[in-house]
């Protein structure tokens, strides 16, 4: 790993410490990684292993205590919060476990949000297209409360991809869904990812989902415990039984 400007995402010796009631607590300890353009990385690990903290740091939502991170070729430590926001707006997409749609806005307006924040004029048309792509073209005027969990996550996927981000961060995207719906969302996520040639960073407990990523990385107490490419090690083997259609195609590719 050099300066990381060639990678979609690059982290070097990233640590995060916080001050607790019993002294300093290390949440992440010198984590380094690189994800190439179009690549996909799963971050797995037990609760409290630092997965979410790492995701937040990589996406520029928070700043590391030490170490450097480069996102889409830009060093995050050189940017203030406003500049990082600008970077996220144009280059980054997000999918969350709890969908996180704004309840005041309908499906289409939720999808328009990243485009509008970026000041684009064709927001409505592109949002309609994106919703049609996730199969919700007929429901674009529904509010989040009128949609099921799976439908809400599909709206969230449309929102994540609508502005053509370089890199997508997904935090337990199937965690709040039943197995069947979750599998459907997983299929859609990877299909969209492929269509847009987006770099994907995925935090999950779901071994099946993790197995569909090209690489996976296991955290334990804030350190990288293991890193494996597709076809290596136990994660893939375990996932075999539950592999969906899309995954099978991908691993054959």
């Amino acid at each position, binding site marked *: 790993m050099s300066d990381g400007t060639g990678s979609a995402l690059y982290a070097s010796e990233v640590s995060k410490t916080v001050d607790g009631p019993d002294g300093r607590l290390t949440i992440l300890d010198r984590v380094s990684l690189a994800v190439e353009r179009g690549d996909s990385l799963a971050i797995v690990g037990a609760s409290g292993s630092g997965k*979410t903290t790492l*995701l*937040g740091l990589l*996406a520029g*939502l*928070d700043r590391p205590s030490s170490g450097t991170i480069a996102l889409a070729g830009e060093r995050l430590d050189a940017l203030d919060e*406003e500049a990082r*926001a*600008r*970077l*996220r*707006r*144009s280059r*980054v997409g*997000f999918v*969350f*476990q*709890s969908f*996180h749609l*704004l*309840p*005041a*806005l309908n499906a289409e*307006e939720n999808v328009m*949000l*990243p485009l*509008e*924040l*970026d*000041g684009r004029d064709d*927001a409505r048309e592109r949002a309609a297209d994106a919703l049609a792509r996730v199969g919700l073209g007929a429901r674009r005027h529904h509010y989040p409360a009128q949609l099921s969990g799976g439908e809400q996550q599909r709206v969230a996927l449309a929102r994540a991809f609508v502005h053509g981000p370089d890199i997508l961060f997904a*935090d337990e995207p199937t*965690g*709040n869904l039943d197995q069947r719906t979750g599998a459907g969302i997983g299929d859609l996520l990877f299909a969209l990812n492929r269509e847009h040639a987006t770099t994907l960073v995925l935090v999950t407990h779901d071994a099946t989902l993790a197995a569909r990523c090209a690489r996976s990385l296991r955290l334990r107490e804030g350190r990288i415990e293991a890193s494996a490419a597709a076809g290596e090690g136990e994660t893939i083997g375990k996932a075999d039984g539950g592999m969906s259609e899309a995954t099978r195609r991908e691993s054959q590719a």
Partner: protein
Amino acid sequence: MRPLAFAARSLRREFRHAELATLAMALVLAVAAMAAVATLAARVERALVASAAELIGGDLALGSPRALPTGLAEEAQRRGLAINHLAQFPSVLFANERSQLCEVRASDAAFPLRGALSVRGADGVERDAHAPPPGSIYADHAALVALGVAVGANVQLGGRELAVAGEIAKAPDSGNPFRIAPRVLMNLGDAEAGGLLGAGSRAGHRLLLAGDSDAIAAFAAWAKPNLPAGARITTVQDAQQNLRNAFERGEGFLRLAALLAALLSGVAIALGAQRFARRKSEEVALLRCLGARRGEILAALLLELALLAVPACLAGLALGLGLQQLVFELASGLLPGAPPELPWGPPLAALLVGVAVLFGFALPPLLRLRDVEPLRVFRHDLVARVRRFDVLYLLPVAVGALLVLVGAGSARLAGTLGIGFAAVALATLVLGLALLWCVRRVSTRLRGALRFGLANLPRRRALTLLQTGALALSLTALAVLGVIGPSLLERWRADLPPDTPNWFAINLQPEQEASLRERLQAMDASNVNLLPLASGKLVAINGHAPVAAEKGDRRAGDFIEGEVRASWSDTLPEANRLVQGRWFDAATRRPAISVEQVWVELFDLKLGDTLTLRFGDREIAAEVTSIRKVEWDSFRANFFLMLDPATGAELPHSMVASFHLAGDGAAPLAALSRDFPNLSLIDLNAVLDRIRDIIGRVTSAASWVLGFSLVAGMLVLLAALAATADERRFEAALLRTLGAHGRQLAIAVLAEFVALGLLAGGIAVAAAAALGNALAAGVFKLEGYTPPLGQLALLVAAAAALVAFAGWAGTRRIARTSPMAVLRRA
């Protein structure tokens, strides 16, 4: 579990949450508003009552529109009482080509019997004094300034040159805070010699008595059956009662304004308590799981609330008492006799109101917490909905109704107010819903942050309506008082025709009529109108002693006991309209009388009834042959009773003139006053200025109390912000995550709150304009009145700015939430 320790610890940890802070602030405000108003009112009332003896000028007063028979004074002296003859009337003073309407008191040397008169001489030294010697007057500072004279100069009063012998520094009956005209004290002999007290003058005559209380009581008992017609006896107790009655009306308005603040604070408290209860419900479920009993949990919750309430109530009390002390100090010039000690009743009552508001509005959500299922620990969506507790939500309504009842002092007024509040609430609801529908339409056409901000309003519909209602209510009150009221008065005044009479001359003798007309013509006076005036007494209606149509009607009582005035004219005077019957003509059977509609209502009169009136020693039984309606604001001499001309001409009478004089006319009027010394001149512009001045004073007193309700309205806004703080924090973090920059978040917040302010302001302006139009049509009889839309628009803009600022201040920290919060919330 030890509830007290648990409550104290919880309060320490939870005070940083916004809802507890708003709860405490609302409580401080409610107690402060009630304490300030009630305490101040009680102190002013006490001061007025304590000075009642000084106000009437003695221990007993006999008052009459005519000079009192000498037998009364002789009897009083025989009984060893000190006596003082006094007459009081408005009159215009002239000096240096200037004129000034003054309240003139003419007295014999005995003045004052009670209290002290202190006069500053030409040397600037203050001395205790009695009424001035013949040929001189004392005038107060305002009179001297208005006339541009100093002590030692001459002024003209009642056609005579009199020397200003001193400046009044302190006089016994300066206790009336609403007395505004400058005051002059003259010698009674001068007034009599100048003809200022003759028949038809507006002078009130008084005989004041002082002595030990038994002698006073005995004299009062003797005098009552021996009083001449139209005379009245006033004891110190009567004066106190009158003062209380007069004061209670003004005070009622201030109390209601304070009450509005308390009720709006209650709404803020209810919002805070609900939020608090929602936050607590998981904790309660957990405690129940761990085996805490319901009683223990409730005790801990109530204790926590009480620990918050006690310091908040005390702080509110301190704030309220401090404020009223400030106002009291500022007003102490008006209330020299005010006792300095603080009454304890009103502050205690304010504390009780605070407790009632707190528990009335906070209890329902807290009591519901008692029924939280332990199972909620596992299932967050499990919300206890127990039927019997829904009744609890009547508690705030009951507390509100009780407060209105206590504040209004009568069930009828409380009912009217209750219906009024409900109507305003309903109107706000309907208007608010309509406006929200518009906002919804508009917001979908907007983009990005602007749309997101606006879309928040219809989404949190109930909260938006509540905030809008609270703000609109307080803004309406302010708009009506501050904008509509003054504009109506201005418009009413501007509506008067340019040659509306601005001077009255009274006490003119009939034989002077022709010469006065000549003089007025020479002075270029226009719209000259002269009418005869006879003063008499109402003896009977249809042969029976007169009774008021409605029992205890004060106006009817005044006409029955006091003096009635009648005039006559060949033709129906201007500004009069016949409603029934015919005006007098040759065919009218005499004596006949025409009555004004007010009398018809007061005494239940109809055509054909007979009124028996006594003028001097003549008694007339006149048949009612017509009923008139008078425009009382026409500034002419108008009369309730008009006799047929033939009957009237035979009565002893004087003349009343009204006319319009351009400019201030001081020089010709001074000459007029000199040549017609018996004439009393009244400057109507000065009277109007006095009215406006009084209204101005009342308005400014009321507006600081209404300021409390506006702050309470803002508190409702802040409480609603606190209630949605978590949601807002999360949404801000999400927008941050999606790449929104700070400016976009600020735009969203400003869009939301400016819109909220515009909603509230718009409703307030609509309500104020509607009220203004209703007042214009109903009370002021103005056609085509347009409320001052510019000023109202300014008010809306100010409201929007204020609300936007409060919203921005309330969400400033929220906007800085780290975007990591999005990942942390499952």
